[in-house]
């Protein structure tokens, strides 16, 4: 990668959102200001909060949930994604999220819409699952992830939780390595990754779109972002905009490059369409 790519990658990794956590009680003293990484998840935030707030020490983290503006937040989405979703939603209504992003922490009446038990272990499992899925989409099998040593796996997760860029990419490089095929044999660039691990988030509570998108077009040319989207959702209007990591992406971004540089830590490309 060029130095620009490296810088981009670094910025994506270390992107932070200022957050104000408010406890469900209306005590103004029960607020906390934090800067949360975009790549982190809500359960990780919960664990940090529990250490800082002694009130939360006795509470089972599995029943804590957050909401913004009345809406419970999905804890299996990366925080950056959540924020982007809200931003785009507000932007439609010509509103903007007032920073710091004010989240309310709840400890009771766990809503049914959310997945149960947002503990760290569950989060880790979820993350690993996403990782495997991404690997499968890319290479046709999850061998790369599965062949990671235990230490590598734990290093991966640890790097994510402690925001260590180098450690993460040290392991992730092995996963993303497209040169070796599924059989572990040397592979030429001609084989290449198969499909793009991609998820589209459409507005208005549309379901998440995930479909097979290949890295090359029928012509053999590298695929581009807008083409890939068109491919996935043919009825997409032409003036659609794509956001990832809080930046609007031009349509001409090659999908390959986007998948390499703009992926979230779970190797998925979560794109918000608005």
């Amino acid at each position, binding site marked *: 990668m060029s130095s*620009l790519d490296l810088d*981009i990658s670094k*910025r994506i990794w270390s992107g932070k959102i200022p957050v104000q956590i408010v406890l469900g009680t209306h005590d103004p003293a029960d607020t906390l*200001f*934090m800067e949360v990484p975009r790549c982190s998840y809500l359960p990780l935030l919960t664990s940090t909060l529990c250490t*800082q707030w002694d009130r939360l020490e006795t509470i089972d983290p599995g029943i804590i949930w957050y909401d913004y503006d009345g809406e419970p937040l999905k804890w299996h989405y990366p925080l950056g994604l959540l924020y982007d979703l809200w931003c785009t939603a507000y932007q439609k209504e010509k509103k903007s999220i007032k920073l710091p992003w004010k989240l309310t922490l709840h400890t009771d009446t766990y809503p049914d819409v959310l997945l149960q038990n947002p503990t760290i272990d569950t989060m880790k499992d979820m993350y690993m699952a996403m990782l495997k899925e991404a690997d499968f989409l890319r290479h046709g099998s999850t061998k790369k992830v599965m062949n990671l040593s235990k230490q590598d796996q734990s290093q991966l997760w640890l790097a994510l939780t402690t925001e260590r860029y180098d450690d993460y990419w040290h392991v992730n490089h092995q996963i993303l390595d497209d040169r070796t095929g599924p059989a572990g044999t040397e592979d030429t660039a001609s084989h290449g990754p198969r499909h793009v691990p991609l998820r589209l988030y459409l507005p208005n509570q549309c379901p998440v779109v995930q479909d097979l998108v290949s890295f090359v077009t029928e012509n053999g040319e590298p695929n581009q972002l807008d083409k890939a989207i068109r491919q996935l959702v043919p009825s997409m209007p032409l003036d659609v905009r794509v956001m990832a990591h809080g930046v609007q992406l031009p349509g001409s971004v090659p999908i390959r490059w986007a998948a390499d540089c703009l992926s979230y830590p779970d190797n998925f490309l979560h794109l918000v369409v608005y």
Partner: protein
Amino acid sequence: MVEESTDYRQFIWQELKERDEHEQQYHVMISSNQHLLKQVNHYRVLAASQKISGNAAHLEQQIQHLKEERADMYKVQSENAQRLVHMNDKLRTLEDLEAQQKKSLVDTLANNKKLADKSTSQTEQLREKDGAIQVLQDELSALQLEITTIEGKNHRLSKENHQLVQRWMEKMNQEADKMNEATEFYETALQRARSQQSPTNSSNRPGSVASTASSSSPSNKDQHKMRVTSIILPDRPYRTLANIHDGDIYCIQASRTGTYFATGSEDRRIKLFDRYSMTSTTLSGSLQSITSLDFNTTDDFLVATSTDYSTRVWNLGTRRLAHTLTGHIGKVFAARFIPADSSRVVTGSHDRTIKVWDLTKGWCTRTIFSFSSCNDLAVLDPDGHTLVSGHLDNTLRLWDTKSGNGIKDLQGLHRGQITSVAVSPDGGSVLTNSRDNTLKWIDIRMYEVLHTFQAPTYQNGINWSRASFSPDGCYVAAGGKDGSIHIWNTRNMQLERVLQGFHKSAVCGVAWHSMGSEMYTADMNAKTVCIWDTSIEKKTQSFVMK
């Protein structure tokens, strides 16, 4: 293409930069907020920990304090336990002591009761004894009254007797004078006959008159001298009688009249020999061995003492047992008739008493306590008022039979027990034979030892060996352990004769014929009696008679 790629890259990079600037405007604030929060937490924790630690310190102090208290409590508890044990022990010992004391109290009470009973019984006994004493005292006074009356009577009678005796003596003297004249005449005739060698074997018996009036008057002494043929000591026995008895011969005695001599033996029999006919009769009736013999003055009775604690009196006329005197509680070793009164006998016994018996009544009229076992007795005066006794404790004692009191104790005379006591014919002295192998001739009035007869060859072998005076008082004879007869002369105190070899064993007694013409000796184990001729007219015949 490359430009495009660069463009979009550049574009994205720019966008990201803007985004970061926008989103990280609160960075400083939030980080300082975080910092403050951290500090607050830290201090809170510190405070809490301090509190805790403070608490902890306080609690630890409390714990220490409590531990100390607990230690003290343990100590106190152990002390208490020890004291308790100690108290328990004490209690136990006290309980034991109390039980013991109770028991001893019960015993003492029982003892007390017993003693009280004893004392009452003893006071009862005492009262009875007092009564008995009273009775006896009354008896005594009555008897004493009797005695005084009888004494008066006695005195009168003795005076009468004395007078009669005097008259009789005068008559006898007259007769004796006549006899003497006759004898002198006879002797001259005999001498004439001897020179002619005419064997005149006439015995001298008609010459002697059996006058066995025991010598109490000095005139009698002269009379005896005159009467008795002067004794010539023999060299050999005239006659030997062997195996007379079945057992050891213990005593031999000649009668007062000279008619008999008798031997008493372990075989419970008395052999009475008639001197003239040499026949013997056996007197039996004793239950055990005969220890001494005595004839009465008229030779009508013979008294014999025995180890069966009794004394027996035989009638020599009928040769039958006349009296048995029992009352001694020890072996009786000596008996004598009272010369003046043949109905009274004195006996001496190893029960340390001397008893005076009345044969008419048949019982003991007086018991004299003699302090020591009596071995031999002799009567000093014809009425029997004074006795002399020789004892086991080497003492010679004199007694008054009227009162029963001792007159004199002669101690230290002998170094061995006194085996016989013989009164001299004149009645003024006494010959004692003793186990210290000496014979002492004692003046009985002055209590002086006139002479001690001893010889290196003489050894007294028997506790009842009898020595005797010759009837004229010139000689004393005693039998020794080796069977020898020693004869001392009382005039010159010399040992005149030792007759050895005729007795095989210890000689138990020497007796003289009342006229002095014969001497009888008996030895114990060989059961032999030798008759020695001590008269002037020697009997030439000597033969052994079975």
